[in-house]
């Protein structure tokens, strides 16, 4: 019952994942992560079956339509525009090096991402799925994206890279949320977005501090607190 457009989008998401894992260029990464977020934002109304039902239901659904539109705009706006912009500003102001580095290198990152995606598919195929969800890519794509985000978090040395990894991970979780839109009250959805916004915002503030305290903004420097 998931609209047919969702699956191609998921393929796109997965492709973007690989790009995120493979690119060392910060600007390109910020852009792609923004794109990633925006894409999911657009999927939000598409996946909202309850809305479709209400929409066909009659004029009472107009309020719902407005709500949906605002929410979509908020998600797309925050994830696709605001966050990339803030990040670009941070890069510019804090004079952060424009390339990222990886603990294990970029090719192995992509390779691991591939393995992770395969594992996600395997895992998802073994989970009992609800009728209508079995043949869709939502579950595996969600898990694969979470894994990809985690991989970026674990392997990137720079603080900003980790922030981006975190966003990717959140996006993966959001993909899963698409399955549940009907069941989940709007407030929680808003919470997701707000938390993402606030969380990332605070992170960026800290990254600014970090880059002022330690040039290079690499977390390699953040290793004085240890056993």
């Amino acid at each position, binding site marked *: 019952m998931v609209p047919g457009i969702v699956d191609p989008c998921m393929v796109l998401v997965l492709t973007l994942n690989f790009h995120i894992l493979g690119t060392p260029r910060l600007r390109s990464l910020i852009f792609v992560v923004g794109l990633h977020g925006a894409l999911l934002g657009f999927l939000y109304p598409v996946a909202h079956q309850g809305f479709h039902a209400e929409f066909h239901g009659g004029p009472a659904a107009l309020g719902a339509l407005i709500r949906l539109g605002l929410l979509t705009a908020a998600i797309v706006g925050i994830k696709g525009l605001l966050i990339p912009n803030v990040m670009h500003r941070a890069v510019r102001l804090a004079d952060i090096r424009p390339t990222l580095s990886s*603990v294990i290198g970029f090719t192995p990152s992509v390779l691991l991402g591939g393995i992770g995606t395969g594992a996600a598919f395997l*895992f998802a195929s073994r989970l009992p799925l609800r009728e209508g969800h079995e043949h869709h890519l939502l579950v595996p794509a969600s898990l694969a994206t979470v894994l990809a985000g*985690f991989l970026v978090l*674990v392997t990137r*040395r720079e603080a900003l890279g980790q922030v981006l990894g975190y966003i990717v991970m959140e996006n993966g979780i959001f993909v899963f949320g698409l399955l549940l839109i009907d069941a989940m009250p709007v407030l929680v959805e808003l919470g997701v977005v707000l938390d993402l916004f606030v969380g990332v915002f605070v992170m960026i503030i800290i990254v600014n501090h970090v880059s002022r305290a330690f040039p290079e903004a690499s*977390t390699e420097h953040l*290793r*004085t607190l*240890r*056993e």
Partner: protein
Amino acid sequence: MTSHALILTSGLIAMASGFPALVLPRSNAVQALTSLILLAGNAAGAFAVRGWWMEGPTPPLAFPSPFDGLSVGIAIDGVSAAFLVPVLLVTSLASIYGLGYWRQSEHPENGVRVGLFLGLLSGAMTVIVTARDGLMFLAGWETMAVAAFFLVAAEDHIRETRMAAWLYLAASHLATLCAFGTFLLLYAINGTYEFVPIRETGTAASTALVLLALVGFGTKAGIMPLHVWLPSAHAQAPSHVSAVMSGLLIKMGIYGLVRVAMLVPDMPAEWGLFVLAIGTVSAILGVAFAVGQHDIKRLLAYHSIENIGIIVMGLGLALVGRSVGNPVWTLLGISGAILHVWNHALFKSLLFLGAGSVIHGAGTREIDRLGGLGKRMPVTATCFLIGAVAICGLPPLNGFVSELLIYIGLFRVATGADASTASVAALAAPGLALVGALAVACFVKVHGIVFLGAPRTPEAAKAHESSFVMLGPMAALAACCVVIGVVPLAVAPILDVAAAAFTGGVAGPASLAESAPLAAISGVAGLFAGFLAAGALFLGVRGVGRAPRSLTWDCGYAAPSARMQYTSSSFAETLVHLFSWALRPETHRPAIKALFPDDAHFESHVRDTVLEKALFPLTRGVLWLFSWARYLQAGNLQASLMYILAVILFLLLWR
């Protein structure tokens, strides 16, 4: 007020005795006040015991507990009373002694602290032996443990003292946790923390209970190889504290063992034999280590291990007797153990107080730097001699009586039991004989080197006798040693009651007066005193005491110097060598290279083998392993994130 309420009050007064001094100005008078309150508390305790003795058993005093629907209680029974008597007596005497030994004006920094925690320690022990349930017991237990920690750490500006205090605390916490586990298991089995016997044995829980109790209380009591904390703590604590610790605190471990033994009435005989065996080993090794020491307080501390071993032997004997249903063995074992608890409390406190007097007078604990103190400190020397003879178990003093009970019990088992049971007892009795002979060697050494001969250092030559407040308690303890040794029948009734409490009235054993030659001991003591008097009279009549004085015969060498005297290390050398497989003596020899070497220096030490050769390496090994774990947390955020990922994947795949 019932005797149960009175004994609790007594404990609380004792605990509170040091608190007024916290707010009052620091002076010797306030210190005396602290002692006085403690004495008042202990006197109340004595009245409580007397009241209990008169009125017989009454229902325990109960309070609501911090737990749901449970109550905790206080009561005196035979075993409690048997432990209460030494507690009340020795803490009082130690407190008085402290007024001279640890004067506030001489110890402005920690005088108040020592008074405070000594009171807490005394009261806590009263609570322990009267507690009727695990919670009350543990409350008293921990108060005691922590108070003793601060007492050991009284002189915490000395590094060794800090190490000793920490080692004590570590061992003490092991003991506390084991006791904790013991009573929790009791709770799990019985559904109550009250001391109610377990009816089903042989289950994993009851086995664990007994093992935990053995480790926990054994650690507190200082059974070899769990004794590691004991020598250094006793050596570093102020002497009157050492007296209380050695005389009483470690006995609380014994009390715990006795109490747990009462909770598990259906123990197999093998456990009793095991206890007997560890007691024997502990006694032999304890005294062997003692022989090698040249610090008088460490030496006395190792003798505590020995005597605890003897007490545990008695307990093991009682357990064997209980298992096979032989009331006489049980009676001899438990009353021997409890009487030895008393005796050890008396003579070991006496010896520690004597050692304190020596330290106070001559300023060192090193036996080899003393000598000839008998002339300058005659009272201390005589009291110490009485303690020394008593601790060796020699007639006609108290140590002999308790050891005799245990010996007779062992001989009875060896002659009366089947071959396998008898074999343990048949090895334990010669073991005890070996212990006795070693103790004689050790105490001849201590007394001889410290008090006899000529002073080895100028400090020893200038030693002064202690004041009356210090000598009085020692004299009192010495008198107790003599009285119990000469008239053991006087203490037989309370031992009978304690033994009856131990068996829980099941197959009530015969009275001690019938089972052991206590009356004969008195007769023999009288006869012996007659012999001694006759001999002394003879020498007196012959005027030997007024004989002319001359130099000691030294094979024609007429300029003997005090440093030529035999030292404690040389005295013990052969014995240390005989036991070197266990003692691992450490010698530092000079390397002689030239024909005419310069000043050379030779040292030998007997360190604690378990501590140095087992525990420290083990700790280092564990710490080394732990240090590897530190690489897992090298401040790397990526690594931390990976642990999260890893644990999620692991748990998702863990079926």
